[in-house]
């Protein structure tokens, strides 16, 4: 049985389409990049469509848990939660500031964030644990982890994948934001993750490859309909939506002036 979760500004948000929510979320991410601290904007803009669709599909049921494991994209997580009314205040208004819970990596003291990620890999294992619990309870709930392709360099990911296979967690979905970048450059230049589809298949996953910015494709891809756990390789563009950032590995983190943030937001709409 589906259970409800608290929603703020429900009426205001109820008519927004997926595209509307993604656009509003991108604006919030840009606003957070204009905060005194700046934010990890490149990976936030690459992952935001995945988050928006994942919450649309699974965010209304308390038996599901959506975990952003690439926690440096906290701005995207806060933005996604806000455009679904899951956060009581606008994260961009206090992001990174003293006394604010909107820290640079996800804060589990905020509603809708059960696990503080940022140290890479842990969110995937936590989501697997949630999936295991739902299976034991027979709730039908899912554990959904959204990670990065650079994050795949962490051994913890493969330790977890091994367990997911061994425990036959068919209610586990692992969505990978394959934007090709990481902190110091391109994944392919630093430590390439080759044969990714084959790797996950070897670990017993069903694998789907999609365009990680096409909402319909994401929506249909993140469905568990086989006897295997699911890995979704979502091809994305770092900095997606802002021409000056798209595909630029230097867009991993940025602090921008307010006037530039205004121009970038106008360009979105």
């Amino acid at each position, binding site marked *: 049985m589906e259970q409800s979760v608290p929603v703020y500004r429900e009426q205001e948000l109820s008519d927004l389409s997926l595209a509307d929510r993604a656009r509003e979320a991108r604006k919030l991410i840009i606003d957070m990049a204009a905060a005194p601290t700046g934010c990890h904007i490149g990976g936030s803009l690459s992952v935001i469509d995945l988050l928006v669709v994942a919450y649309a599909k699974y965010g209304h049921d308390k038996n599901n*848990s959506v975990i952003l494991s690439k926690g440096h994209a906290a701005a995207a997580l806060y933005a996604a939660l806000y455009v679904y009314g899951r956060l009581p205040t606008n994260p961009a208004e206090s992001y990174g500031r003293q006394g604010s819970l909107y820290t640079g990596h996800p804060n*589990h003291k905020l509603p809708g964030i*059960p*696990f*503080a990620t940022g*140290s890479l*890999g*842990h969110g995937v*294992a*936590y*989501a*697997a*644990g*949630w*999936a*295991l*619990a*739902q299976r*034991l*309870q027979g709730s039908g709930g899912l*554990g959904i982890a959204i990670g990065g392709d650079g994050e795949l360099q962490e*051994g*913890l990911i493969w*330790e*977890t994948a*091994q*367990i997911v296979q*061994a*425990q036959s967690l068919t209610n586990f979905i692992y969505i990978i934001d394959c934007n090709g970048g990481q902190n110091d450059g391109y994944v392919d230049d630093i430590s390439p993750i080759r044969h990714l589809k084959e790797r996950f298949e070897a670990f017993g996953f069903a694998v789907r490859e999609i365009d990680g910015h096409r909402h319909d494709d994401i929506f249909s891809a993140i469905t568990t309909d086989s006897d295997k756990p699911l890995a979704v390789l979502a091809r994305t563009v770092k900095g997606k939506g802002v021409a000056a950032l798209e595909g630029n590995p230097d867009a991993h983190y940025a602090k921008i002036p307010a006037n530039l943030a205004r121009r970038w937001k106008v360009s979105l709409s």
Partner: protein
Amino acid sequence: MTTTLSGRETYKDELAKLAETEQRIICLEADLGGKNHPFQIRHPNRFLNLGIAELAGVDIAAGLAEAGYVPFISTFAAFAALRAAESVKLSMGYMGKNVKLVAPYGGVSGGWFGTTHHALEDIAVIQSFQNIRIACPHGEEETRRVIREAAASAEPYYIRLSRNDAFESLPRASQRSCRDLLVEERAAPDVWPRLCLISVGEQATELCMKLAEEYDFIVHAHACYVDSQSLKAYVEPLKALADRFLVVEEHRATGGTASYLALLMSEYPVHSHNCGEQWPTYGGTHAEVLADLGFGLEPLRRQIQSLLGGLDGI
């Protein structure tokens, strides 16, 4: 005649019993639980050997805890506290997930297994994470009680056990929690002790029991829980026992119980009998490896003699 069980066998037996009535208990192993695990036999649907994956195992336990389960996850202390340290810090310490981490092979109880399987740093590591209860029970009965207390608590736990040592616990009133300092009853309570021995862990408790029996100027207080909150709660009861303290613990001096108590009781001399600064590079039994590290009855007796200027004429 019943046989006294070691700490790790007691853990498995007690948890399997508890799970008869507590359906939320899940037993996780990282491939070191051994064959014929009683929990696996009695509750196969709630027993999972996750394989050799300690870091992921603790995070997976956190996910189970978030969903309402009470996961107990066990692996050797060296791997629990050190290999899985970041998961313990974040999932258990920072986020306070209700995970119980049970760690046999504490200290050098692995004996001849060697340093890769020893943990003389675990309490310092776990204590520095904050918010995690740390229990070092002595003997079968206290271990059973700690497991029951952990299962009933919503707090994360680190429970340090030994390998095969099997002891009878000090008697403790049934209504008292293992979180209470346990003061061994003395034959001559009207003698103000010159020294209070504070024991942490099984071998240390055995040593302190022997010396407290030999010398009536010694009072023995057994500390089962050694997390920072528990140590703070011990301060006033300890002050009522003596003016000088010697903590006996199978651990490094750095980050050990003595160092934290010394901070909490700065007006009192707090000394430490510990495993020193050397690496345990030799084989042998548990007691022999401890002896190589200068930890044992005679070294302790000599240390007391040095502290007090003699052992006679008290």
